[in-house]
């Protein structure tokens, strides 16, 4: 039983990591209707920026804030400069652009900072919460920050007109223009916010998995699955989905089929869920009347 709880908690904490990444994916999805495969690498890059700032003597929080701001501007810039000309291109051409961005950031980070892992500082004390190695302050911190970000996002999308305008722009761009929404800027804003969320996620994850250019590759897969299983149009669902995937993966690995196939199996279960609930567990089905 204790082992079960341990694995459950380990699952929840890795779930928090996935949830964090899933939030960034949801942000871009909600505001642009795309799944950004470069989300992980953008987060990684922002984390490196923070690392570089700390390296030259910035305080942690100073670097944290600067990295988030830089990421925001960077995301905005990517949308304005690279993706804007492609607004009318087919979806798959955009996917190729995301893949290109992924390659670019990964290679660039490797060039600038090498592929050797680096430790990344954490704002949380190196403390064990219950004294039995179950939950560290870092892990609790990730969960807390994820939940806070979720709260902010939910409020933003649900209760502010700007959030509403962003959702509208993503769902039906031409109709949104006719409501006076500056669609192109909404997309850019979405990218900026997603990049900022990614930066936060990256800086939370890095102390655990260590900073390296491939840091987010594996995590993105889980984040992607989490976002979809929870319902990618819904921040709350995505976070829940991230936790579900984390717990599922750990329990499957420990009890069902061993570690070799745990990712495959967890993903297969996710797909199974999607077969039964095509819009994700918490996603709303968009009903269309013909």
């Amino acid at each position, binding site marked *: 039983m204790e082992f079960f709880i341990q694995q459950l908690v380990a699952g929840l904490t890795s779930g928090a990591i996935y949830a964090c990444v899933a939030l960034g994916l949801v942000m871009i999805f909600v505001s642009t209707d795309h799944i950004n495969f470069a989300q992980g690498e953008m987060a990684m890059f922002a984390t490196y920026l923070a690392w570089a700032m700390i390296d030259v003597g910035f305080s942690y929080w100073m670097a944290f804030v600067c990295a988030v701001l830089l990421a925001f501007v960077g995301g905005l810039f990517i949308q304005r400069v690279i993706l804007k000309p492609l607004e009318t291109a087919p979806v798959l051409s955009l996917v190729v652009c995301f893949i290109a961005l992924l390659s670019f950031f990964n290679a660039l980070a490797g060039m600038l900072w090498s592929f050797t892992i680096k430790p990344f500082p954490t704002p949380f004390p190196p403390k064990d919460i219950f004294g039995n190695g179950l939950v560290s302050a870092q892990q609790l911190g990730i969960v807390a920050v994820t939940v806070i970000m979720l709260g902010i996002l939910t409020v933003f999308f649900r209760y502010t007109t700007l959030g509403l305008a962003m959702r*509208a722009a993503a769902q039906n761009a*031409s109709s949104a223009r006719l*409501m006076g929404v500056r669609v192109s800027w909404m997309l850019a804003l979405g990218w900026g916010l997603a990049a900022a969320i990614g930066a936060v996620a990256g800086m939370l994850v890095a102390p655990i998995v260590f900073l390296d250019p491939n840091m987010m590759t594996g995590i993105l897969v889980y984040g992607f699955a989490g976002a979809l299983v929870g319902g990618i149009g819904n921040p709350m669902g995505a976070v829940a989905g991230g936790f579900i995937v984390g717990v599922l993966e750990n329990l499957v690995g420990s009890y069902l089929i061993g570690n070799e196939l745990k990712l495959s199996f967890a993903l297969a279960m996710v797909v199974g869920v999607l077969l039964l609930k095509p819009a994700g567990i918490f996603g709303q089905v968009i009903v269309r009347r013909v």
Partner: protein
Amino acid sequence: MAAILDVKGLSAWYGPIRALYDLDLTIEQGGVTALLGANGAGKTTTLRAICNMTRRAGTTTFDGKDISKFTTEDIVRLGIGQVPEGRGTFTGLSVDENLRLAFHIRKDRAEAMRDMDLVFELFPRLKERIKQQAGTLSGGEQQMLAVGRALMLAPRLMLLDEPSFGLAPLIVQEIFRILKRINVEKKVSMLIVEQNAALALELADHVYLLETGRVVTQGPSELVKNDETLRKAYLGY
């Protein structure tokens, strides 16, 4: 009466295909103008071209201001509300959210709230479904929502693209009655594209007849209504 919208030499393209040829069009302040013609005559294109939603040439003057180079968003912000073809419903948003979307360009929140009340007064059925996902509404309700959304922008000119399309006659009647009310009470000028010419002629005071991207004739609606050859040739009744 001064013209609220003045269009000179308007041409438009769909991809490589030209859809409008040097169209001239004027809408009087407070008037209702109908744009009639067969399928493919270029009616929808005209509405889209006015709002700069397609490749176009020519000048558009709105309330004395040249808006030819303006983006769609800015044109809308100046006070042109369009009810687009296919209703443009935000299917994933609730009815309430569909309407509240206009808040982000309205500076006068109190005024906007009053407009929202007006929409619900005009379309009580929308109020009943206020929290419902807009995609689940019926066609008629979605049409009402589209008109309501445009109204929320506090427009001085409304462009309506086939408000009767695919709706039961009773609902069509209702919508047109409400449009009349909006025109009279809110002093909103209108440019209305319709297949249902008879209905449009009831509402409109001025008519343009379009054929393959060109204006064939135009004049007060009474004139067209009474010209049987014209009606037979272009409107099919």
